[in-house]
């Protein structure tokens, strides 16, 4: 493992343990996951595992139409069905029927136009996408509720649907939201330098149109909500598959008119989040707790897979018109990119995705002049919110493809043109002068890009492949190609997270933090950080996440920020507990704290190991039954600390891939997949690799298999895993990874995020490699996903030219 700083000089790696400690650090080692025993033996609790006495079950009546006037909803027959307890339509909700909150207000960008149109709990007046909920059935069983769905008579007058992004902005297009002048949800222009002037100096200008289409996040666990109003405790408990239990608790308390302290949201184990389980205030999330309070009985709803295809948010529809201006040496003078972004029927998540696209397009390159402009477009399709990568892959696809095309046109090697344009290690912090999604300017904190690219090229054997192997295999009639693509990823954004670390009298350590966990390994990485600071066994540290009763301050798991922000808070809280333990032991032993060592769960006088206390003993002594806690101290070995970075930390990496294409069937076989990745200090290499493997699998799906097909009336045509293809184990090759560590200066441990990295450059690298394999100058890939069918058509078309 190599460790480098910005100037290339080796820096001491972050060890996790404060100076002077002798313990072997857990940070930076392959610690096995604390959560796996529970997960692998089926003892982990998921929301659907919650069974309460007297619990009622919910099914939703959803729109079959993408766009239409909701003329009437007749629920009389459903209400009469035996076992149905209640049926709610929009009218029945009364004052509770309010638009959901705007979750992320747009950043302060001059001239920004944004129309917030968020969803209602139940459709009112109009339906705007297939699957939009119209009525809620609450019954004694899910079977009865589902049967009662068929009893509800919904009268909808169909309207023409808005599906195609470009047609949506035409003067004749039907309007998704009639109070707006058009289907434009937002318009944003960001500029750096002067692109037009740069273009006029350019030797070469590459202009292309690029498409990226929608996919599903396809988490293995669908969404679920259970709510119980406890009349004796006067407390509402909500089990929710959310990535952000605290904002959900705060929002629901306000909407339901309850103090925050009377609402508890628990996000237990969650089977994959990937973005759509963020603090969405989905209709189901709003309605299940409300119904539980109305009816005085626990209420449960678990999404089925088909509902997930309609009702859980999706991502990725964009159309780009992009241009790159270069010198004849292949140096980028500037980039201009104008794109349309499909936000679906509503826009509760603001502009996070297209702003990520704007920012991520710049990649690791020195791009002095940049014009980036987008229009967000309302369509009659499922709502769009971030899905792993969250717009970043589009930016990478556009810039990497433009570089590939420029390299080919100018006869420059693909790796070479990238090397010529990389930001050097002396260029950090690097201010890109445009605004990032966290409302702070886009500043790269650190990075060392050239060695990352060189290492990826070396591992895949780029030079040797291009020089010897490819010509040899081509002579044998094989179509093999190599792709190599770079990316930079803004991660670990604020505002903040917190953690409470408690040493119990048993000596066990408890860590509570607000972020929810969806399989990443939080119970292990947070334990590693705390175990190092307190010099205890990692298995002795119990982590609790995602329960607002345990920790009630924070935001959530998104933007590759859990380890960076919550991890840093855990570190700070553990350090505070360590100081407290040392100070107490010093007082009791009548020595200076500096004379003490902490190791193996004990604090003792250096050089006299028998003079000391276990941490458990100290925890007891810090909470005495007689005597006074000294002024200026707090009882217990416990501390709560927070971490809020001014801005996110910048991870980067390079993906390299070898493919073989059968031009007759257009099937692509991935022969090798290499990821060289720099996420700063690595807490657990095994978990980083796991994140990368999962991300690459997700990316391969996006690149080659997964596409949500909507017809011209907004009907989703492949809402099942029979027709919507996820990559399976045989489609994902073994992934070779190498880690580099350029620590972030923005947090003590030097952490950067990694959760989304694996799927960000996958489309770009896949397109480049397939193009290279076919080796036909008439053939160019400008769209993702590039399914076998699309690829076949492109090959056929190129041959006709």
């Amino acid at each position, binding site marked *: 493992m190599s460790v480098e700083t910005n100037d290339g000089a080796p820096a001491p790696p972050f060890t996790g343990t404060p100076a002077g400690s002798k313990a072997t650090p857990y940070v930076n080692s392959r610690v096995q996951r604390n959560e796996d025993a529970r997960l692998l033996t089926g003892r982990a609790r998921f929301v659907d595992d919650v069974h309460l006495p007297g619990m009622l079950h919910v099914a939703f009546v959803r729109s*079959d*139409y*993408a766009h239409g006037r909701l003329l009437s909803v007749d629920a009389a027959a459903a209400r009469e069905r035996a076992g149905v307890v209640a049926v709610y339509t929009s009218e029945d909700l009364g004052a509770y029927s309010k638009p959901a909150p705007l979750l992320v207000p747009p950043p302060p960008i001059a001239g920004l136009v944004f129309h917030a149109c968020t969803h209602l709990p139940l459709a009112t007046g109009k339906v705007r996408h*297939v699957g939009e909920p119209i009525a809620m059935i609450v019954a004694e069983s899910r079977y009865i509720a589902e049967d009662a*769905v*068929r009893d509800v008579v919904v009268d909808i007058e*169909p309207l023409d649907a808005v599906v195609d992004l470009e047609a949506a902005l035409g003067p004749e297009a039907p309007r998704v939201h009639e109070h707006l002048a058009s289907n434009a949800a937002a318009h944003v222009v960001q500029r750096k330098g002067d692109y037009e002037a740069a273009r006029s100096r350019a030797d070469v200008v590459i202009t292309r149109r690029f498409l990226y289409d929608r996919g599903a996040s396809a988490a293995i666990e669908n969404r679920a909500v259970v709510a119980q109003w406890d009349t004796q405790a006067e407390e509402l408990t909500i089990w929710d598959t959310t990535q952000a239990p605290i904002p959900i608790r705060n929002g629901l308390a306000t909407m339901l008119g309850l103090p925050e302290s009377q609402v508890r949201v628990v996000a237990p184990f969650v089977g994959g989040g990937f973005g759509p389980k963020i603090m969405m205030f989905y209709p189901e999330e709003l309605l299940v707790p409300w119904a539980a309070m109305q009816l005085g009985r626990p209420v449960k709803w678990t999404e089925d897979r*088909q509902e997930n*295809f*309609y009702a859980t948010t999706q991502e990725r529809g964009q159309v780009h018109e992009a241009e790159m201006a270069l010198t004849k040496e292949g140096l980028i003078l500037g980039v201009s990119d104008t794109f349309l972004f499909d936000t679906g029927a509503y826009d509760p998540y603001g502009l996070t995705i297209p702003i990520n696209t704007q920012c991520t397009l710049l990649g690791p390159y020195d791009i002095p002049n940049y014009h980036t402009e987008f229009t967000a477009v309302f369509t009659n399709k499922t709502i769009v919110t971030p899905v792993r990568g969250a717009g970043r892959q589009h930016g990478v696809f556009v810039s990497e493809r433009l570089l590939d095309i420029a390299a080919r046109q100018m006869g420059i090697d693909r790796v070479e043109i990238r090397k010529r344009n990389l930001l050097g290690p002396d260029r950090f912090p690097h201010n890109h002068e445009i605004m990032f999604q966290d409302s702070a300017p886009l500043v790269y904190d650190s990075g060392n890009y050239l060695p990352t690219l060189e290492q990826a090229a070396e591992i895949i054997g780029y030079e040797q492949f291009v020089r010897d192997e490819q010509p040899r295999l081509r002579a044998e009639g094989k179509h093999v190609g190599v792709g190599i693509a770079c990316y930079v990823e803004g991660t670990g954004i604020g505002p903040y997270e917190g953690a409470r670390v408690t040493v119990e009298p048993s000596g066990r350590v408890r860590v509570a933090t607000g972020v929810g966990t969806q399989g990443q390994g939080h119970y292990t990485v947070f334990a590693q950080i705390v175990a190092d600071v307190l010099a205890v066994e990692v298995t002795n540290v119990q982590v609790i996440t995602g329960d607002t009763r345990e920790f009630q301050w924070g935001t959530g798991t998104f933007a590759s920020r859990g380890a960076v922000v919550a991890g840093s808070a855990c570190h700070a809280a553990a350090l505070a507990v360590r100081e407290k333990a040392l100070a107490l032991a010093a007082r009791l032993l009548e020595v200076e704290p500096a004379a003490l060592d902490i190791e193996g769960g004990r604090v003792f006088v250096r050089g006299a190991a028998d003079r000391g206390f276990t941490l458990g003993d100290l925890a007891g002594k810090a909470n005495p039954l007689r005597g006074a806690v000294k002024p200026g101290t707090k009882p217990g070995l416990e501390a709560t600390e927070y971490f809020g970075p001014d801005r996110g930390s910048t991870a980067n990496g390079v993906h390299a891939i070898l493919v073989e294409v059968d031009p007759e069937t257009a099937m692509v076989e991935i022969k090798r997949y290499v990821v060289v990745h720099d996420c700063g200090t690595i807490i657990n290499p095994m978990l980083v690799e796991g994140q990368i493997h999962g991300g690459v699998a997700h990316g391969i799906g996006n690149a080659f298999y997964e596409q949500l097909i909507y*017809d011209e*009336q907004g*009907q*989703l*045509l*492949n*809402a*099942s895993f*029979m*027709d919507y293809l996820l990559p399976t184990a045989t489609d994902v090759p073994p992934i070779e990874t190498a880690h580099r560590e350029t620590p972030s200066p923005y947090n003590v441990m030097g952490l950067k995020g990694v959760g989304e990295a694996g799927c960000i450059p996958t489309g770009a690298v896949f397109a480049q490699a397939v193009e290279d394999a076919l080796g036909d100058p008439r053939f160019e890939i400008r769209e993702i996903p590039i399914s076998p069918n699309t690829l076949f058509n492109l090959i056929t078309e190129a041959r006709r030219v």
Partner: protein
Amino acid sequence: MNLTGTFTFDGPRTVVWDLLQDPVVLAKALPGTERLALTTEDRFEGVMKVSVGPVTAATFDVVVTLKDKVPPQRFAMQIDGKGGVGFTRGTANVELAEQPDGGTLMTYTSDVQVGGKIASVGQRLIESVGKMMMRQALDALARELRVRLEGNPHTP
């Protein structure tokens, strides 16, 4: 879904015309029809059961309105079906031309939209199911025609 085609009936145009306007005949001929009745002039209402791939025996309330009738030459239909698993909506045009041999050539075109669950899980099969139902219906109508002309239900 677009279904278009031609079919030759072995009988005179006026008889074919009457056949195509008779709800009792149509109910027998259209596969899966549970009920079909002429409720008002030129308006048929009924219930059909259709199976498409994984969606088995989906029930639809169907309303067919006849329009632009030029007996016995041509008519158009507005089709609206609604059910628990989705909806169908569209138009169809039927033309009947007398043939020199005394038969009747029917030319039909239709443009039917299918939406909701049935579209999203049965998409790959909808068109073939539509064609199959059409073929079965036409064969049944041809048999019915023979019965009318010959008065013998057992003629092969």
